[in-house]
């Protein structure tokens, strides 16, 4: 007697769930950075090629496996081969790591939303110092947005060794973030299916609003032009944003990595979502749709980001010019309003020739204002979202509205991805009859949320952001590549490609295109192996791992080495997920030997 499995109310919910999961923060804060680093428009070439060679086939594979096996990741891989249940366990472990640290980002988004209802925005002005004669020193050295992020939000300590205590404000926001996630996953697909309508579509509304606003901002065209035009390297050699970057292997590797992680392969979330599908669902069409929408969103988001970059860079450039003008006006007692950006250079040379000694005194303070230098500050990750964007927002009119919209969008993106992550953990748990016999679904979800929240309190400590970076950089990268590699090999060679093809045909009624067969059996595994080799060699060659620490006295980031216990922890992170695969295989092997009832001990 087969227990009825909950289903999506309609296929649209499934597509929205996948889109909401795949379109996450990486589309907004990693892709624009990569675009900028690897030649702007020409980065799209390796990106699209990798999408076709690697993204779509692997996405289709995971969805097909989930839909066919109709179980979460552990059960699905156990069905494929009992020795490979470790793949499922590894997926759950990695998902657990991810959900622990990812929700902290949602907590930060909440924090910023709650602080956006003030005039002026708290990150637009520096607080005063003790005797109210000037501004806070740390804030002066850095900028007000950096100060608000590093001091008011994180209250970051100077290094990872200094732990500090749990900060109650981010802790409260983290608890709220977990409560919201719990609310969304409480009833399983019934509640998740309705929530994903919002988490998938609202970010697009905000992005469109921002696109319109961004393109009408003063200086936005500077940013867009920068993204698409050739860049001049040191020495005057022009780097054609067309041919030369294509020859750079790093561009291809980063394109492959970005596609891979952006789609969220290997976590088991896609398998979990697809397992709630009707068996006759056309997951090939959905796989293509989801991957195309994911990439299109990345490109769309980078257009928005670059127009915002352009605005911020132009604003800072004009500010810099105004400061120089003020300095010269004050030093030479020129008439107020005489100096303008257009006649600045003329007047400077006139002053240099007429009052050489006085000009010489002022010269060290005159900064060389360069729009290029402002645009060149490529940032990714939390730095982009919480520092660069907030700096641009504070200069817009009605900045409270733009701030709320922006962080609300980040929140929707983050919660959408969290739904996928928690589904990856909960689906195997609720599939297991042993657990569901004792606990109702709500209690299991509640327990998972509670444990993740409790562990997540580590990230609200003063050194929490450093631990966050450790998780962000190492918890998922290598493990996922290995997991997906084993998945592809398992389906093609252990389960058998022909057998899987037959299953799909009987399930959906459509035959498998030769393109997918070639990709699954040959091209995609080769790509993943080359990515793995690259990552491993990169780690080995770099030697000791380093991190960026915030130095309050200088008001900027400094590079430091990880202490030994942090390195050990990183090793444990990677090992705990990857070791599941061989350990589970070994365990199954041993259990089978024992079950065969041999009196002789296992050799």
């Amino acid at each position, binding site marked *: *007697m*087969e*227990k*009825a*499995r*909950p*289903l999506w109310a309609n296929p649209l919910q499934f597509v929205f769930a996948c889109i909401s999961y795949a379109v996450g923060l990486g589309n907004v804060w990693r892709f624009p950075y990569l675009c900028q680093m690897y030649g702007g428009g020409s980065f799209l070439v390796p990106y699209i090629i990798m999408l076709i060679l690697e993204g779509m086939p692997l996405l289709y594979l995971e969805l097909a496996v989930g839909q066919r096996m109709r179980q979460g990741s552990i059960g699905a891989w156990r069905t494929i081969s009992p020795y490979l249940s470790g793949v499922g366990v590894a997926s759950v472990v990695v998902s657990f790591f991810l959900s622990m640290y990812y929700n902290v980002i949602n907590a930060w988004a*909440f*924090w910023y*939303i*709650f*602080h956006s*209802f*003030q005039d002026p925005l708290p990150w637009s*002005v520096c*607080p*005063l110092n003790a005797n*109210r*004669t*000037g*501004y806070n020193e740390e804030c002066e050295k850095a900028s007000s947005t950096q100060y608000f992020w590093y001091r008011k939000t994180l209250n970051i300590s100077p290094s990872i060794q200094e732990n500090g205590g749990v900060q109650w404000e981010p802790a*409260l*926001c983290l608890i*709220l973030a977990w*409560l*919201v996630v*719990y*609310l969304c996953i*409480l*009833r*399983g697909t*019934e*509640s998740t299916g309705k929530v994903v309508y919002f988490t998938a579509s609202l970010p697009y509304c905000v992005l469109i609003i921002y696109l319109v606003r961004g393109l009408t901002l003063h200086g936005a065209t500077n940013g867009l032009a920068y993204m698409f035009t050739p860049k001049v390297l040191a020495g005057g050699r022009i780097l054609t944003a067309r041919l030369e970057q294509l020859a750079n292997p790093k561009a291809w590797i980063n394109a492959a990595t970005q596609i891979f992680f952006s789609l969220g392969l290997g976590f088991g979330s896609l398998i979990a979502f697809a397992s709630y599908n*009707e*068996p006759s669902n056309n997951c090939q069409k959905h796989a293509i749709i989801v991957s195309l929408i994911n990439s299109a969103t990345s490109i769309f988001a980078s257009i928005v980001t670059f127009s915002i970059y352009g605005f911020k860079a132009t604003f800072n450039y004009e500010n810099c010019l105004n400061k120089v003008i003020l300095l010269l*006006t*004050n030093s030479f*007692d*020129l*008439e*107020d*309003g005489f100096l303008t950006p257009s006649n600045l250079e003329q007047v400077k040379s006139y002053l240099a020739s007429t009052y050489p000694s006085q000009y010489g005194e002022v010269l060290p303070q005159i900064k060389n204002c360069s729009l290029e230098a402002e645009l060149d500050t490529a940032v990714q990750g939390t730095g982009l979202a919480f520092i660069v964007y907030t700096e641009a927002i504070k200069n817009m009119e009605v900045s409270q509205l733009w701030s709320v919209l922006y962080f609300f969008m980040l929140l929707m993106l983050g919660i959408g991805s969290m739904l996928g992550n928690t589904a990856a953990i909960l689906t195997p748990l*609720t599939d297991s009859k042993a657990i*569901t016999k004792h606990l*109702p*679904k*709500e209690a299991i979800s509640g327990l998972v949320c509670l444990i993740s929240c409790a562990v997540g309190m580590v990230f609200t400590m003063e050194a929490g952001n450093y631990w966050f970076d450790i998780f962000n950089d190492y918890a998922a990268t290598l493990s996922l590549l290995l997991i997906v590699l084993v998945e592809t090999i398992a389906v093609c060679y252990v389960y058998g490609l022909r057998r899987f093809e037959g299953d799909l045909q009987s399930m959906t009624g459509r035959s498998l295109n030769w393109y997918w067969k070639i990709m699954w059996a040959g091209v995609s595994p080769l790509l993943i192996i080359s990515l793995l080799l690259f990552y491993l060699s990169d780690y080995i060659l770099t030697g000791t791992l380093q991190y960026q620490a915030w130095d309050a006295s200088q008001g900027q980031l400094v590079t430091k080495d990880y202490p030994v216990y942090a390195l050990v922890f990183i090793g444990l992170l990677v090992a705990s997920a990857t070791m599941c695969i061989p350990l589970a295989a070994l365990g199954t092997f041993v259990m089978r030997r024992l079950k065969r009832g041999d009196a002789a001990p296992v050799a």
Partner: protein
Amino acid sequence: MLWLLFLLVTTSHAELCKPDAENAFKVRLSIKTALGDQSYTWDTNEEYLFRAMVAFSMRKVPNREATEISHVLLCNVTQRVSFWFVVTDPSKNHTLPAVEVQSAIRMNRNRINNAFLLNDQTLEFLKIPATLAPPTDSAVPVWIIIFGVVFCIVIVAITLLILSGIRQRRRKSKGLPEVEDAEDKCETPITVENGIPCDPLDTKEVHLNEAFVPEGERLTPL
């Protein structure tokens, strides 16, 4: 004789007020930056007003109530507009100590700014730091209020969902004490209506299709 006296007075004035003189302060105005089209020209009348404001500030200092406008001397007015000023004592031979002048100006900075329609940034007294406005701090930080509202909404929603889930389960188990608790939402309407286990119907097409439910109702009595 009178001419000699006049010369003496002007030179002594010149001695008292000159750039970097003892107890002298430099003032800098950025009228065009502040007022744009509505800016006024700086002329001797504006200088007179300035001297009046400084004298006014000094008169508020204890022991200096006798300060007159003529005690305030201006010199080196540039196009910027910037100039130096000193405040002399009634004898017009010595300048008042810088500390006194500084504290007097600081106390009345707001009045002086307003007289010229300027602010702390556009009317600068070099070497006299402005007292920056304290940030407006409400008793309860705004963010806690919004946090509290969202928090309560979420808690209420969770409680409602959990309670309705418990109620649904209780209704199901009352209707079918022997059937195992299934987490499928689609089963509930069918079992409650019929009171007969319909697992054989549930294997694949659990998706609630209205066309099938009345069909099931018709079939089950058989």
